[in-house]
């Protein structure tokens, strides 16, 4: 397969049942089309603006069977940015991210320059097991960003991907391709209370 040099790869990790697919789907469907046909590879791609030019955002949703999240060395070594998803209703799902983080660390070596977002999904649920501050604390420890989302109510989903792109200091990227990227200042205000970047 020919390597596309201007691909920006976002890899989504998380245990079974945390809503990885819903999250990806929300984003993909929100920005793409109504009927979703999963075997078409294009539905995972979106053109974004990058350094005054365009590149393709490619989402890799790693697939394993439900009890055991399969992690693929290849997706990590090729990935540019990472989203680690847990469900706020399951402490276990946050625990299960730890070996995944270790894996990213082991393969990438130094993670400081790599955009990583820890995501507490299902923020609409009332049966909370993981407090927001626990998620923040974990993100702090991992030196990564943190956000709570709800794929169900579409809360913070686009913001998640935009914020992830903002984390990349080597490139200047935006989901909007019209080039009119809103200033960092105003976006930070818009996201106030929803997201904290460490």
């Amino acid at each position: 397969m020919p390597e596309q040099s201007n691909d920006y790869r976002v890899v989504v990790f998380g245990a079974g049942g945390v809503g990885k697919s819903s999250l990806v789907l929300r984003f993909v469907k929100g920005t793409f089309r109504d009927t979703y046909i999963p075997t078409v590879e294009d539905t995972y791609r979106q053109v974004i603006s990058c350094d005054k030019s365009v590149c393709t955002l490619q989402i890799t949703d790693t697939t394993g069977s439900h009890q055991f999240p399969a992690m693929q060395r290849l997706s990590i070594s090729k990935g540019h940015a990472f989203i680690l998803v847990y469900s706020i209703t399951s402490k276990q799902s946050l625990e299960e991210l730890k070996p995944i983080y270790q894996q990213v660390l082991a393969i990438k070596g130094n993670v400081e320059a790599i955009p990583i977002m820890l995501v507490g999904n299902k923020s609409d649920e009332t049966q909370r097991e993981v407090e927001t501050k626990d998620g923040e604390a974990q993100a702090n420890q991992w030196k990564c960003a943190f956000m709570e989302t709800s794929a169900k109510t579409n809360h913070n989903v686009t913001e998640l991907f935009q914020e992830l792109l903002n984390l990349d200091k080597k490139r200047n990227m935006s989901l909007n391709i019209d080039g009119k990227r809103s200033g960092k200042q105003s976006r930070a205000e818009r996201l106030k209370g929803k997201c904290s970047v460490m």
Partner: protein
Amino acid sequence: VVSKQIRYFDDESSSDSTSRAEPVTMPTFDEDSADSIVSDRYVVVSGTSEKILEHLLNDLTLDEDQGTTQNTLLDDFLLTYPVFMSTSDLCQALREALERKRKVLHLVSHWMALCKDFLREDEHVKLFVKTLCRYVLDDLYEHPALEKDVRELQKLYQLHRRHTTGEFSPQRKSRALFHQFSLKENGLQSRGTHRETKEALCHVYITMNSYLCMRVHARLLAQELLQAVAERMDVPQGDLALVAVTYPGGRLLLQPKDRVFSDSSRPIGRLHVCRKDLGEILNPFIDNSELQQRTARMLSLNTWDVAVALTNFDWTIFDSVHEQELIYFTFSRHSSSNHTAALELLLQRCNEVQLWVMTEVLLCPTLCKRVQLIKKFIKIAAHCKAQRNLNCFFAIIMGLNTAAVSRLSQTWEKIPGKFKKLFSELETVTDPSLNHKAYRESFKKMKAPKIPFLPLLLKDITFIHEGNKTFHDNLVNFEKLHMIADTVRFIRQCQKDHMEVRAYIDYLHVIDNQQTLFELSHRLEPRA
């Protein structure tokens, strides 16, 4: 009379997605009117479940060779009905449609062929088939033509009662009689025995965080399990005790004659085997000689043989995976139905093979042996791929790819370039980029029978399910169901011809007369 209960799109334009914005509402059809013409050109898009069933019955021709459109719709419906109506609802609806007995009969025989023993234990189906059978028997005197159907039904009913399965699937009908016959025999035998003995994968914990995964029958006794563990771990059986941890802190010492599984085929608790003094059998961090033996055993195995054994194991499970299991798995993931047993076994197997690869490598204390082991696993993975068992292939590659194994740089450095190259080629197939494009393309090229990487199939169905609504304004979204049916039918295509080769091999047709063979030879190429 215009009904809004069912919608059609023109088939010719449906390939163009923009035209889908304008639904065409068609009149409801009277029995045997123009509907058969319509069905060739239109695809059912949505409708109430009753209307779709009614439409199916209207359109059903009693010919053997129906239009493919019709067959697909029927297939879609029968595969996916659990999404929008229960089996008892379907039985009820069919009961209400009984004035069209022949068509109902036809539909039911398709249904039974498709779902095989899947419906066996359903009481509603049992009752309904009984009713239908009685109805048809009543008419037999007046309509002798029904005899064929009655025989079919009785066969189904018998099948039902005797708890065995047969091969009535419509695709197989057209094949040569010889094949069909032998296929049936073989199918009956292997499936029958598989079902009767009810196998399970049983986890027996040897230490707090390691277990033996054993394939056992559901009526297993504690002493049989101990014997198997003793053999596998090379420990005298007399030293061992089987303990079930029923709840945190609760321990139950199982007596030799105790059953390991409860009636629901679930173990009584988490099973532990330990020494009678409650000491652990094996400590993965200390027991050196034991571990060396373990590696030596693994290294002595022939990689092709291991791949064959792994693949045979997977086939016995994959063969009994039914298309509908994928649907039940996606739509009722949290309710513990018995409808997904085989599928779950195979998924579990995928995880276990992955853990097995990691365990073997990481329990091997010497560097050069570790290099040997990794080479073995790369070869086994390649053989699994050659045998078109992609589920196992992925499991092995993913096992080698986990950080715990892939970080062993000293080990990987010593792997010969040839193997490294092979590994990276194999790894490319598992690359998830572009939604597993690499795998999808190479799997498509493989001939059936083949075993797909099942987690991806489940992911596809999950995405279809979550990405599309089941109902549009109370009408069943049949486009979505068609997509789902298409995805699960993939299983059928993969399983295709699996028994065929065996059936062929089991009944070799030979000429045992040398004279005749010689004559044939001369007839082909006459003596010069």
